[in-house]
């Protein structure tokens, strides 16, 4: 066992009286923990969430309440359902995508998938933001705002991972991606720009230089120059300075994404431009304007000048990217870790310790994928993020080498955790199925165990669960679902439905049980119920002997009703001689023969009558063995009547057959 990475967080369970000794708890179905308590509690204390407390009824005097505790609280957030559903589609699409794609097109596809995931996070974030604004309840507002910040952190991490691990941008291009990343996640500037530009005299606005600085820090030269031109027109004395600074900004060499120039060319140009900036700074061109001087220092990559703008950058990774932009524009992926570490140290300045987000980003800059996933698993309250990110990285073939000492591999482990969470949700269980499907080693077992625990409230839901099992050849589960449904139908006296379910499950034993119920009902009432079903059994009649008998017996009744007596008689006899009918039913069958025996014309031939007589004797002989003196009067009378009828019929048959043969 590895040692714990962090101390497990404590969850306070309200209502557990301290004096009462130990806390009693039990694992419940679907990732929950159930424990006893003396009084009800409400409240959220991370990391386990108290979902509800139920009255315990009559059990015990001391602990009338049960608390249900769940981990993976995010699964149960209504607002995140959109995220789960939409990303499910992307996940399934990624698994289905053909393996044949290689090289560039494969990479483009993976980057596309990654962007789709991010846009789903963003859409969810915007929705949540809207809800936070529109709600009047301060508690809800807080909850939504927290979610917005969590989602935005998730998107930030995902985006960085996309650049470093999926896109794998080479030196030069790497920085452009990182710049985009910073611009996308520092959004305060846009509001500030709007405020400055909408004022009457932008260059006199107190935030004017702040905005220019931010543009420069983010490498948005076009925007910075645009603002600078405002200053130039408003303030003729600084026009010359503005012109020079503007020129420097314009000349700054950038590696365009579609540009064909090589890195060495670029570095040469950069060197040249750098020297030019240096010259202007040294000859004191900007000495009269501290704002412009500091911008020039920033252009030269002066760490202290950049650090002075700490307030404007707000985060260390912004500082890192700005620093790289003006000092090491052609930074290689492998060098990132050194710059990142020093930027973090410089920015925090030993005052604050790094937050979980900082640790995660740092791990990403260090290309420690496993560390990123591990830190995310600890910091985030859901499995969604790590499961999907790991799956994507696995598709990038980045996780091959790593094996866990438990389970199969990390991707599968995380997907299983996430899908199990989905199955613990009242409605989201359907999504979990596809995740289990794509876990080659344990997915099937997990699915089998989880699917049996889905409550089957309606037939429609049962059909949906059944379809899932049938598609995956999970015969055991199919049988159990059909049996549950058949049992329910039976309890509701819906014999027809019950029979349909057992036929679907090919459950012979249960079909026999239901057939017996039908026959019992017939014996009691003298007529069949559910004729529409029994007349329509078709080939499924062969499922069980008893069902066959039921179908055939019903056929006898139909033939009799249609006055096709000789066919009916033949069928009746066959039911006994071929031992299709259960022995207990023979007396009924023999009694059914009575009206046929009493018809005007002879229906049973002499030979058939002998057979009938033998059946009767077999039956009574068997009876004698078993329950010797139990025969009551009615039974004896019945047997006597039958014997009489047989004898008379035999006489008529012999006469008739004799006459026919004689003539």
């Amino acid at each position, binding site marked *: 066992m590895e040692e714990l990475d962090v101390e497990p967080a404590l969850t306070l369970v309200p209502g557990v009286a301290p004096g009462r000794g130990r806390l009693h708890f039990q694992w419940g179905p679907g990732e929950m923990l159930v424990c006893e308590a003396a009084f009800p509690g409400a409240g959220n204390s991370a990391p386990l969430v108290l979902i509800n407390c139920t009255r315990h009824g009559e059990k015990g005097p001391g602990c009338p309440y049960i608390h249900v505790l769940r981990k993976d609280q995010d699964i149960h957030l209504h607002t995140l*359902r959109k995220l789960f*559903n939409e990303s*499910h589609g992307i996940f399934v699409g990624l698994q289905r995508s053909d393996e044949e794609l290689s090289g560039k097109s494969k990479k483009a596809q993976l980057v596309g998938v990654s962007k789709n995931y991010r846009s789903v996070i963003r859409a969810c974030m915007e929705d949540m933001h809207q809800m936070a604004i529109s709600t009047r309840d301060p508690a809800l507002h807080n909850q939504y705002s927290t979610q917005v910040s969590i989602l935005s952190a998730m998107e930030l991490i995902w985006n960085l991972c996309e650049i470093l691990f999926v896109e794998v941008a080479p030196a030069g291009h790497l920085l452009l991606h990182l710049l985009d990343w910073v611009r996308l996640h520092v959004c305060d500037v846009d509001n500030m720009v709007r405020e400055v530009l909408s004022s009457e005299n932008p260059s006199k606005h107190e935030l004017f230089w702040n905005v220019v600085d931010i543009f420069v820090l983010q490498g948005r030269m076009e925007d910075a120059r645009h603002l600078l031109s405002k200053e130039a027109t408003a303030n003729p004395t600084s026009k010359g300075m503005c012109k020079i600074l503007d020129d420097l900004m314009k000349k700054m060499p950038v590696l365009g994404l579609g540009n064909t120039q090589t890195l060495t060319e670029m570095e040469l140009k950069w060197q040249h431009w750098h020297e030019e900036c240096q010259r202007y700074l040294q000859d004191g061109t900007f000495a009269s304007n501290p704002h412009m001087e500091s911008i020039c220092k920033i252009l030269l990559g002066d760490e202290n000048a950049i650090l002075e703008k700490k307030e404007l950058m707000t985060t260390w990774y912004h500082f890192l990217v700005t620093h790289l932009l003006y000092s090491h524009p052609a930074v290689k992926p492998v060098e990132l870790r050194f710059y990142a570490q020093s930027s973090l140290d410089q920015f925090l300045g030993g005052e604050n310790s790094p937050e979980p987000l900082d640790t995660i980003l740092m791990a990403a800059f260090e290309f420690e994928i496993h560390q990123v996933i591990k830190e995310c698993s600890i910091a985030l309250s859901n499995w969604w993020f790590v499961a999907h990110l790991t799956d994507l990285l696995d598709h990038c073939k980045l996780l091959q080498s790593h094996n866990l000492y438990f389970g199969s591999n990390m991707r599968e482990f995380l997907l299983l955790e996430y899908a199990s969470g989905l199955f613990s949700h009242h409605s989201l269980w359907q999504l979990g199925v596809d995740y289990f499907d794509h876990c080659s080693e344990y997915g099937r077992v997990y699915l089998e165990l989880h699917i049996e625990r889905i409550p089957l409230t309606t037939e429609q839901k049962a059909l949906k669960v059944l379809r899932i099992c049938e598609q995956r050849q999970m015969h055991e589960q199919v049988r159990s679902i059909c049996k549950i449904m058949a049992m329910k139908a039976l309890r509701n006296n819906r014999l027809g439905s019950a029979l349909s379910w057992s036929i679907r499950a090919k459950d012979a034993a249960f079909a026999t049980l239901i057939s017996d119920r039908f026959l019992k009902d017939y014996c009691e009432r003298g007529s069949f119920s559910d004729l*529409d079903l029994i007349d*329509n059994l078709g080939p499924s009649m062969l499922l069980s002997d008893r069902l066959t008998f039921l179908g055939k017996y019903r056929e006898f009744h139909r033939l009799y009703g249609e006055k096709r007596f000789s066919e009916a008689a033949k069928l009746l006899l066959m039911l006994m001689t071929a031992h299709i009918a259960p022995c207990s039913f023979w007396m009924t069958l023999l009694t059914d023969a009575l009206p046929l025996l009493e018809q005007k014309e002879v229906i049973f031939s002499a030979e058939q009558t002998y057979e009938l007589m033998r059946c009767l004797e077999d039956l009574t002989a068997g009876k004698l063995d078993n329950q010797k003196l139990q025969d009551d009067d009615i039974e004896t009378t019945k047997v006597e009547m039958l014997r009489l009828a047989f004898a008379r019929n035999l006489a008529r048959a012999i006469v008739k057959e004799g006459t026919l043969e004689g003539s």
Partner: protein
Amino acid sequence: MEDLCAKFVSQKLSKVRWRPAPATALQPPELFATGSWDNEENKISIWSVGAVESVCPNGEYQGEPQLLCDIRHYGDVMDMQFLDQERIVAASSTGSITIFRHHQNNQTLSVSQKWERAHCHVDSDTSACGGASCTGVICKNPEIVTVGEDGRINLFRADHKQAVRTIDNADSSTLHAVTLLRTTEILTVNSIGQLKIWDFRQQRNEPSQIFSLTGDRVPLHCVDRHPNQQHIVATGGQDGMLSIWDVRQGSMPVSLLNAHDAEMWEVHFHPSNPDHLFTCSEDGSLWHWDTSVEVSEKTSFLHQGGRSTFLSHSAVNQPNVNQSVVSAWLSNDPTKDRMEITNVIPNPTLSVNSVDVLGPCLVCGTDAEAIYVKRQLFA
């Protein structure tokens, strides 16, 4: 495909229905209702797809459906129909039937009438009554017909407190869906592959006619009648097969068409353009069947991802019927049997539970908690 708009709504949808347009109106429908299932709290919701103003000059539709109002519904919404412009009839898995009224002036929903336990299992010992799922409802103002898992058929009138007519144990298996055939006649489909016609004029509680799939007893899940030619009926089964029946003759389907890979949950003829048919399925697909295409035109459709199907099996031949009046659905001419089929939803994942078409618009709801709206069906 460009005008297909998806919206994730955080509830699993079991039913979607357009609000019927007033008889005089020519503009496309604007409102639809959805019902949810398998949520801890289920809802009936009314959505707007935007008024005409939101349609750009070039006819392109912009914006997604907006929620107008919703109301709690007890149990899963198993089926749902608009009774008129303002009232919605919903069938619940608890066995109750509820009429909701949509107040358009202040955009709210309220319960206007409710029949508790319209469908139930009666315990023979205690004669207690446990609710049974009501699986289908069809209405023609003011009459409402419901069927359920208990095999019972109920006839209600919107203004009566009690059922006007009840047929207990009408079917020994589960009734899955119901539709109106003629004024007093209804059609039901059940879980052993039978199609039954019931006539409310007859007092005895027996179907006036029974049709069935031969052999396999594949359960039928949905049924719809041709809007103009009332003898043509389409049903969808558990194996995803589409069956076309002619209820004037025979007791077997006229044709069986291979369609979806799993349960077909709903089938609908286009109400004003019945050469078009729409089916949706558990396998996540939604198909648009078009029989109006002439053979010569077909080649042009092929490259658009269209799919041609084949008539797998013709059970009953069409003798001596004037070909010119025979609907394309009944035609057995091999050259005409080919029809154009397009899948409306790209990248299917989870079940499409319900679809509804009205005018040029289509709406469908899925287990992936998404609503899809298509505004230009025939563009």
